[in-house]
C-alpha cells in the first residue's frame, strides 16, 4: 500500500515523543570525564620536573615555553612554564615525552574567558597557587 512507510515513520517519532529524553541538564548535571581525557590546563608537579625541556621540544606547534635557570651548583630551577592554549592541539605529545610524568591534564574544561590574555597561562604559578590553597585548607 502506498503510504505504509510514512505511517511506520510516524510511529517511530511517536515512540520518541513520549520516550526518554537524552538531554543532560548542564550545569546542574555534568557528564563525568574519562581517565584519559585530554583537556583543561596542564597540572604541573614541581617536585618531579627535572627541567629537561623534552616537552617543549616534542610539541608540534611550539605551544610550551620553558624558562630554566642554572645556579652555581649546576642545579636547574624552573622559572616559568608558559602554555599557550591558542597554539595547543591537545595532542598529548608533551605528556608522553616527559620522562618523570611531571605534567598531566587537570580535566577542567570550563576555562572559557572574555579576554585573549587568559589563553596564555603559567602552569608553574597555577601549581603553586593550588598548593598554597591546599596548605591553607589543611
Amino acid at each position, binding site marked *: 500500500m502506498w503510504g505504509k512507510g510514512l505511517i511506520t515513520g510516524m510511529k517511530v517519532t511517536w515512540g520518541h515523543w513520549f520516550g526518554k529524553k537524552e538531554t543532560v541538564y548542564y550545569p546542574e548535571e555534568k557528564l563525568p*570525564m574519562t581517565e584519559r581525557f585530554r583537556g583543561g590546563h596542564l597540572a604541573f608537579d614541581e617536585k618531579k620536573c627535572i627541567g629537561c625541556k623534552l616537552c617543549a621540544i616534542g610539541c608540534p606547534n611550539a605551544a610550551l615555553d620553558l624558562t630554566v635557570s642554572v645556579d652555581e651548583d649546576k642545579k636547574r630551577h624552573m622559572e616559568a612554564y608558559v602554555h599557550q592554549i591558542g597554539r595547543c592541539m591537545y*595532542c598529548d605529545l608533551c605528556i608522553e615525552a616527559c620522562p618523570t610524568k611531571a605534567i598531566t591534564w587537570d580535566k577542567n574544561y570550563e576555562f572559557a574567558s572574555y579576554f585573549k590574555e587568559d589563553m596564555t597561562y603559567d602552569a608553574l604559578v597555577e601549581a603553586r597557587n593550588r598548593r598554597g590553597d591546599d596548605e591553607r585548607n589543611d
Partner: protein
Amino acid sequence: MAQTEKYVLNMGPQHPSTHGVLQVQVELDGENIVGAKPVMGYLHRGIEKLMESRTYVQCVPFTDRLDYVSAMNNNLGFCMAVEKLAGIEVPERAEYIRVICAELNRIASHHVFIGSLTNDLGSATGMIYAFRDREKILDLFNIICGARMTAHYIRIGGVAADAQDEFLRDTQKFIDYVPEMLDEYNKLFSGNEIFQARMKKTSIITKEMALKFGMSGPNIRASGVDYDIRKIDKYGAYGKFDFEVPLGKRGDNWDRYMIRMKEIAESAKIIQQALDNMPEGPYMAKVPKVLRPPKGDAYHRVENTRGELGFYIVSDGSTKPYRVHIRRPSFVNLQALDTMCKGMLLADAVTAFATIDPLMGEVDC
C-alpha cells in the same frame, strides 16, 4: 513570445547545506540545472607544507585534521606509510585494536552522512537521531584515548595506549545495539516514500564515468565497480576478517545511500570478529626515540570512509620528511559534481552534494 535566460546561482561558502565551506556556482534554467562548478580552497591550511618542518611523530596529529570526522583512518594511513618506509613491524594486538578503531570511526562518519543527508532533505529529526547514536561512538573514543574527534591514537609502531577492559565491554554493548539502530533508520528513512521518491533515479553516475573520474569508496561501489582496498591490499589485519563489500546497481543517490547503510552493518561484523579473537601482547613496537627512516619514498593507501586515502612520503634520511603528499578521496570525488547535477532540479543538487559526502577539511587539506 516569452524569452527565458539562464542565470548563475551562487550557493556560496555560507549555505545551510553545502558540507562545510564549499562554493558551487550553479547555472540554472528556471529550476533545471545546466552546469555546476565547485570552487574550493576556503579551508586550505597548508598541512602538507607544515609537515615538512615537523618530525614524523609530530606529523601524526596533523593528519587528524584532514578528514576530521574519521580521524582514526587518517592516522592509520600515515602511520602505515611511515612504517612501510622505515621497516617497522607492528605487533598483532595493536593491529586488531587499530582495526576496531578504524571501523568504529567508519560507522561514526556514516552517521554524519545520514544526519546531514536527512537534514538537507528537510527532516531535521534525522540529524538528531544520527548524532545521538554517534555520541555513543565518541564516548568510546573518549574512553580509549581521551579525545572524541581528533583522536591521535594510532601511532607509528602501534597504538598510544592499551585498550582497557572498559573499552572492550562498551564496544561490545554498542555492537549489540547496531541492529536495533539500523532498524530504526530503515523504518524512519529508507521505508519513507517521499525519501525514496527524492533519491531514486537522480544524479546517476555510470560505471565508465566513475572510472574516468578516478572516484573511489562508496561512490564508485554504488556504480557497480567492485573496488575495496581492504579486500585488494589486505593491509593490517584485514586479511583475517570475513566481510562482504556491498555493491550498487544504478549509481544513483539511492544506491549511494543504501551502500553506506549496509557498510555500517559490515563494519559491525568486522568489529565483532576482532573483539572475539583479540590476541594478547604488546601494543607498541620498539621504535627508536629519534626516528630516521632510510632515504627513499613510500606510498601507502587505506580505505577511508570516503575512498582511497593515500600517503606518499619522500624521506631524505633526516628526522623530518622531505615531502608528504596526501591523495585525498573527497578532492577527487568532487569532480563528479558537474555530471551529477546536469539535467536535475535544484533540489537534487543539494541531495547530490550530500550523497557524494565530501568533507572540506579533506578537499582543501
